[in-house]
């Protein structure tokens, strides 16, 4: 029952976020600040993870291709498919649920427990719009992060496969272009876009409606991470079912 109640509250929160907007000038500054915190601030870790995981995907594929009938082109093909379809959009979003999500929950949660949200509301400011809306807008740039991750993931795979001596550059590139279905890119970005919305709103929900003190802020961040990643996994399942099968 409480879950149903919370889900209802979550949707009401989203509705509330888009009404009674804050002054445009103020909002613009907030959006830039969030882009800096949430998007620019994540680029480093995303680049690092994508590059190395891309490399590992290539090595794993290569090492498991012991049967000589299977062409080496498969390494490029498999790396592309796994990076574009799941690794960049889904796996990285779960990492972002930890990085961006816990940042959002703890910053909003701290504002709640130190009465900063009350201070906004006393002045008649729609605190949900003030706090959450800029995060949603900033996260609209999240697909760019994932695009970079796709590129670096495949680059990592290429370097690991070619310079690791598992395949030649030609073979890898042929595999990379083999059976390419453009819709897979659309599918990946459609789900990335939905994840970006989840990444902005679920942690905000947990921060905004929390009660208690500093200890509870920590607990709320953990809970928010769990729920954000669960939602991403579930949504991923349904989108894949709907779009690819």
């Amino acid at each position, binding site marked *: 029952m409480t879950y149903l109640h919370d889900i209802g509250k979550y949707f009401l929160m989203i509705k509330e976020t888009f009404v*009674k907007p804050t002054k445009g000038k*103020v909002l613009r500054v907030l959006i830039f600040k969030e882009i800096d915190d949430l998007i620019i601030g994540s680029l480093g870790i995303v680049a690092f993870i994508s590059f190395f995981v891309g490399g590992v995907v290539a090595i794993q594929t290569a090492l498991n291709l012991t049967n000589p009938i299977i062409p080496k082109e498969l390494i490029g093909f498999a790396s592309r498919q796994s990076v574009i379809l799941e690794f960049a959009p889904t796996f990285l979003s779960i990492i972002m649920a930890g990085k961006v999500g816990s940042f959002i929950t703890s910053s909003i949660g701290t504002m709640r427990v130190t009465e900063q949200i009350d201070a906004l509301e006393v002045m008649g400011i729609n605190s949900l719009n003030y706090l959450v809306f800029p995060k949603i807008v900033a996260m609209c740039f999240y697909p760019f992060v994932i695009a970079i991750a796709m590129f670096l993931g495949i680059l990592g795979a290429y370097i690991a496969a070619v310079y690791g001596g598992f395949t030649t550059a030609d073979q890898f590139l042929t595999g990379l272009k083999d059976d390419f279905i453009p819709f897979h890119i659309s599918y990946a970005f459609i789900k990335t876009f939905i994840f970006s919305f989840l990444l902005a709103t679920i942690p905000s929900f947990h921060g905004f409606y929390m009660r208690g003190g500093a200890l509870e802020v920590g607990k709320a961040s953990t809970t928010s991470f769990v729920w954000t990643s669960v939602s991403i996994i579930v949504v991923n399942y349904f989108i894949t079912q709907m779009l690819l099968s």
Partner: protein
Amino acid sequence: MIEVRELRKGFGDVEVLKGLTTSFDKGKTNLIIGQSGSGKTVFIKSMLGLFRPDSGKILYDGICYSDLDFEEQRAIREKIGMVFQGSALFDSMTVEENIMFPLQMFTKMKKTEMRERANVVIDRVNLENANHKLPSEISGGMQKRVAIARAIVNNPRYLFCDEPNSGLDPHTATVIDNLIQEITKEFNITTIINTHDMNSVMEIGEKIVFLKEGNLAWEGDKTQIFRTDNEEVTNFVYSSNLFKMVRKAQNAQ
């Protein structure tokens, strides 16, 4: 003027405010006093609409605030200045940005005008050399003063202060008390102050409401409070050793 009628507020099974009826005049410094836990903060927050009262009415200059929804309350809220018990400064903003915040939100001032106005109130609360510091870099007493500056910067029509001078040294506390009183007179605003500081009561207690376990136990002003026979009030007032001595001296005369 703010009127409160039969205000009740509870959390779960616990009733914190048990039917309060009183009024706070314009141009006066109205004090709410009472022991820790007597419901002062809950009272102020219910008047502000941060807590929705269980029953009762709050009237701001005749307008029934408690019946309005958030959107309709907005016009009044923009005219409210509030100093929270824990200051509630925005910790991502510098002192100056905190103080300029209401101006940024509700006026069309240019940046330089805002900065000028902010510096006027910064002077009034005796805050030097802190403009570009973050709230975490200044002392608790300074944070209080920033909170007061933020509350008064946009010339509010209603000023609420939840223990504005707790955590301040006696000198600064007096400065703040006097400042609040000056502003109240100067702009003829309705000021409500929570306190358990007897010095403030003596200095600026033009109207005093005494809360005891969520009931309104006594009302009066600063001269009456030292003469009343109400035992609960005298227990509170004379619980401090200083005032016990004063009373002894008075009785001896």
